[in-house]
């Protein structure tokens, strides 16, 4: 072989390689430059995807960390029948194809059992079908005929994770799914009016769910990425990523056990008296923290759609009632605070009329006849005429100012909203009788929570507080990011006056209208109320609002408790606060003393110690 031939071969090889490279280069130029835009559009359409990551909504917890509301993932299972069809069509051998189809059919029967559906319904879903589509959108299958392959036939919603795992294990061709978060309320109806709920669309409708949505909802994240032929994400082609931010957890001041105790009592009240509505509120007097707030009727948060609208109302803040005798704390507290009376000052409550500012005013009726009694007795026995005379000593303006200071005529700034303002007309709009009727709780109305917070002011040394329902907010990692301190609204009474009034209120259960509902050693202080309801513009003798609002122990208050029952049906009698509300108050207070480990302020009777030593009474 000559050298020249070798050189020629090498040159030819080199030319060939270079030509090939040039051909590749030219093709690349066409692909990357000439046809670039068109090809990019095609690739983008086929491969690009934006995956939205749903933020997990924060949980709602009670003050002890028990779950009140949480989010649970559920799966919507659907079928892409065309996917199965395409899988079977790939197989050319008819026998093998039939075998594969038989295997899939057997799996469909298992799927039907897991989903609790008839086998026929599942088989129907796996039958390829077409659906109508707008002609302008019909470019998917190459034909513009207004028909396209139906690739999403829903089989079942709300499939739980364990069931879905079993479905995945079956490895069924054509099964697709979508994961969604659904709100669940482990307590069912526990604190239903406080927690509120999310509707089916995920929109918060009421309660903490609605008003604390800003903390709870979080922020969805998204990933811009590419997918392969099997529609799986190609993680290496992630181009942009916005991290999901889960919602914060909200800790409420509600205590599940306290809430349960009051809801149980409401259930008993409902069964016994079939009231129009009833509400019970328990708070910590020193902070205004709501330990429990419940209403009758109530509903199950997990089945909110079945509950009538009346059952979904938080009557504690949405409805106004005349406070009745519970309002007497205004006149008594104001008169003591102004120093114009002492607990021993006496008033003639047997008189029917009184001269006031040059006019003779008819005094309201009493439930029982009184003679000359002290201020302490006016409070304990709930004398209407006594309260009227105390208010007259104060005068219209001063009495009105005190009522305002107690928070009447305005909202309490309840953090979960929905609250209505009470009605308290200024003295300029009073008629001649108002000064004698308002002190007994007529001509004024307020929500149960407003009445409750007024009593709370007596319990905590004369300070009107804003009711607290949110204890703290925690981030998803459990770190506390915001706390809520007690909010002071007003100094209603001097601390000394408040303590004195608290002691006078212990007389109510010791010897007054609530006699017999004391708990020895725990100084129950409270006020009964029985208000005639206004029916067709007149005070009815048949329909009443019964209430008992109080706190304990009087000299070291730890709980303020209100029981308000609207239009209780008492067979053959009047729904007095002492008959309807006071027993419920007493029963709840007994349980709260145990649960909250409240220590007695006075020694318990020796007989009780003896009984307890012996193992208690049977």
């Amino acid at each position, binding site marked *: 072989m000559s050298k020249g031939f070798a050189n020629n071969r090498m040159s030819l090889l080199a030319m060939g390689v270079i030509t090939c490279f040039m051909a590749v280069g030219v093709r690349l130029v066409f692909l990357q430059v000439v046809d670039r835009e068109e090809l990019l559009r095609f690739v983008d359409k086929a491969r690009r995807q934006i995956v939205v990551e749903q933020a997990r909504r924060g949980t709602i917890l009670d003050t002890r960390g028990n779950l009140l509301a*949480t989010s649970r993932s559920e799966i919507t299972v659907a079928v892409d029948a065309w996917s199965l069809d395409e899988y079977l069509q790939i197989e050319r051998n008819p026998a093998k194809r039939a075998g594969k189809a038989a295997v899939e059919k057997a799996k469909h029967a298992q799927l039907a059992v897991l989903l609790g559906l008839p086998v026929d319904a599942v088989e129907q879903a796996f039958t390829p079908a077409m659906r109508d589509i707008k002609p302008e959108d019909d470019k998917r299958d190459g034909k513009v005929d207004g028909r396209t392959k139906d690739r999403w036939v829903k089989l079942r919603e709300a499939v739980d994770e364990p069931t879905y795992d079993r479905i995945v294990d079956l490895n069924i061709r054509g099964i697709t799914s979508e994961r969604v978060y659904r709100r669940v309320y482990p307590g*069912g109806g526990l604190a239903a009016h406080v927690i509120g709920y999310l509707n089916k669309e995920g929109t918060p409708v009421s309660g903490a769910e609605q008003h604390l949505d800003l903390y709870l909802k979080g922020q969805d994240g998204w990933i811009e990425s590419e997918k392969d032929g099997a529609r799986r994400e190609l*993680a290496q082609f992630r181009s942009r990523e916005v991290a999901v931010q889960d919602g914060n957890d909200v800790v409420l001041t509600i205590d*599940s056990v306290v809430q349960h105790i009051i809801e149980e009592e409401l259930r008993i009240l409902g069964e016994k008296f079939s009231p129009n509505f009833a509400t019970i509120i328990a708070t910590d007097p020193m902070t205004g923290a709501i330990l429990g707030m419940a209403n009758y009727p109530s509903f199950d948060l997990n089945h909110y759609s079945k509950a009538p609208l009346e059952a979904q109302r938080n009557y504690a803040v949405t409805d106004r009632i005349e406070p009745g005798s519970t309002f007497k704390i205004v006149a008594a507290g104001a008169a003591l605070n102004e120093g114009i009376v002492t607990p021993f000052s006496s008033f003639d409550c047997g008189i029917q009329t009184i001269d006031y500012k040059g006019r003779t005013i008819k005094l309201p009726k009493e439930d029982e006849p009184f003679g000359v009694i002290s201020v302490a007795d006016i409070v304990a026995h709930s004398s209407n005429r006594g309260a009227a005379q105390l208010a007259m000593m104060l005068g219209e303006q001063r009495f009105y100012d005190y009522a305002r200071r107690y928070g009447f005529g305005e909202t309490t700034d309840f953090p979960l909203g929905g609250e209505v303002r009470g009605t308290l007309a200024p003295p300029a709009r009073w008629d001649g009788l108002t000064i004698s009727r308002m002190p007994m709780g007529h001509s004024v109305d307020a929500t149960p929570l407003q009445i409750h917070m007024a009593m709370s002011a007596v319990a905590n040394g004369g300070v009107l507080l804003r009711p607290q329902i949110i204890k703290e907010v925690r981030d998803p990692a459990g770190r506390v990011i915001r706390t809520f301190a007690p909010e002071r609204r007003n100094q209603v009474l001097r601390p000394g006056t408040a303590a004195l009034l608290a002691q006078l209120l212990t007389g109510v259960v010791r010897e007054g209208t609530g006699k017999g509902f004391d708990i020895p050693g725990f100084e129950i202080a409270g006020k009964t109320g029985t208000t005639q309801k206004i029916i067709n513009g007149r005070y009815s003798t048949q329909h009443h609002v019964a209430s008992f609002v109080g706190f304990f122990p009087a000299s070291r208050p730890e709980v303020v408790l209100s029981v308000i029952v609207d239009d209780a049906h008492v067979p053959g009698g009047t729904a007095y606060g002492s008959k309807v509300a006071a027993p419920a108050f007493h029963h709840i207070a007994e349980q709260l003393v*145990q649960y909250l480990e409240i220590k007695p302020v006075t020694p*318990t009777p020796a007989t*009780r110690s003896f009984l307890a030593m012996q193992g208690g009474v049977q």
Partner: protein
Amino acid sequence: MRPPPAHSLVNRLIALTLLLLMFAGSLGLGAVWFRQEISQTANRSRSLEHKLADIERRLDEVNAQVAAAVNPDALLRQNEAMRLGLAAPREIQVWRIAGSAELHLASKRNLEAFRDEAFSVAAASASAGKDFSFRFANASLR
């Protein structure tokens, strides 16, 4: 000095081209390997993310189930269904003590043990017609 023959230059050029091609090919293969590694790592990372999300979902599921099982109403139902007869004490059944509950119970137990033992010793002695002496029982709680 004679210039190198033309074919020698061509040979060198070809050899250099081949070397360049080999180098470029190696670079290309390296890049492909590198991308493959990136892809595998990304997919592993995605898989771990999915696992983590899955575990969190299951944790939420379990937490919700636990919360539903321990809510006061469910516990009361269990109490009834299992006929446990558990009930909160009534106020009249409660005896509050100021100091340590353990010491209080120990002294109460000592009192009972002492009384029982004294009684049995006295009975035995009486039956044997002998005198008896006191013995002390100590709390073993500390």
